[in-house]
């Protein structure tokens, strides 16, 4: 491949850029590996702990609130939070393709597809969190409305906020991100020759 066509000897200029590369000792790499593993374990513990706390909190509210709506809401909220957290734990445990054995196009496509699918997964599942929260809120408002009439307004405000967050903002954001990733996948397919057709095996 001749390089003399290139202007201003661009290749030699390019190679000047790595004159002082960052170097890491093996001990540094081992320490960093241990640190990352500890961070990962900590993250999983925090996630699992949060899930357990949610389930316990809403489980307790089954006994605290006598209202049927609040109880149904609490049960569904605990279930929905558990579902989301289990998904998050599975996501964290996901093993990506082996970077040494996978070609660049396949790896990039897999990363994009995974990111897109994750956004798509989230898009309508926000509603799973919305409905139970609202049921729970309304149930609690029913219990305390006579004792504290202002709670009705508070619950209305809370429901409006939840609706805006879980029914409009979050799903739209997830859908927009999924589209963005899909655009990248389409561009990649076009650029690498209409999908996998021009790829090496």
């Amino acid at each position, binding site marked *: 491949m001749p390089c003399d*066509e290139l202007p201003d000897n*661009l290749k030699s200029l390019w190679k000047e850029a*790595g004159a002082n590369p960052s170097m890491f000792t093996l001990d540094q*790499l081992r320490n960093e590996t241990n640190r990352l593993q500890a961070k990962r374990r900590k993250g999983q513990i925090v996630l699992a702990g949060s899930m357990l706390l949610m389930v316990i909190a809403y489980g307790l509210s089954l006994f605290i609130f006598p209202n049927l709506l609040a109880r149904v809401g609490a049960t569904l909220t605990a279930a929905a939070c558990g579902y989301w957290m289990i998904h998050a734990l599975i996501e964290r445990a996901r093993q990506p393709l082996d*970077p*040494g054995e*996978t070609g660049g196009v396949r790896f990039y496509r897999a990363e994009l597809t995974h990111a897109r699918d994750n956004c798509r997964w989230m898009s309508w599942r926000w509603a799973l969190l919305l409905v139970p929260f609202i049921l729970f809120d309304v149930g609690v408002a029913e219990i305390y409305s006579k004792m504290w009439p202002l709670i009705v307004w508070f619950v209305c405000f809370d429901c409006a906020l939840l609706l805006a967050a879980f029914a409009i903002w979050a799903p739209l954001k997830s859908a927009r991100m999924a589209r963005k*990733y899909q*655009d990248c996948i389409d561009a990649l397919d076009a*650029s690498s020759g209409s999908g996998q057709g021009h790829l090496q095996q």
Partner: protein
Amino acid sequence: MSRAETQDELYQRAAQEYGAVLSRMAYAYEADPDLRRDLSQELHLALWRSLEKFNGSCSLRTWIYRVAHNVATSHVVRQVRSKRITSAFLTLEDAEARAGVEDIESSTDRNQSLDRLFALIQRLDPLDRQVIMAYLEDLDAESIGEITGLSPENVWSKIHRIKNVLIRRFPRGGRHAL
């Protein structure tokens, strides 16, 4: 020689021979200096860990390029998610087209030329970045195909476009249009 020693020795050889390549990759994939330092460490770490599985099914060079590009690509996908990349990637076609209409600035400064080259690469799609960087590293089309998984014809077509972009954006005499 134990398995761990082999991995460590391979890494040391790889870092010695390809440390500069990894450093350039970090520059080409990340403009932010702090994130670049993190990416550089991530590249070395991923390389060291991956070498445990290296079985000689391809050359060490191909393995290193694949690992580094794939890890850097994951970094780019994460940046898309965290909204640091808001606009679409620049395609080679766009880069070719824009070279003709954008303002031409005069500069003979080598550092500035290099900055402009990195700026161009950082705007490209990760796949095009892989090809352009491998091309600038003097890898042949077959090696680039092995790293990216593209067919040789596709690699040649991309290289042809890349050459056009570079020639139009970095014309002889130091007049650049990035």
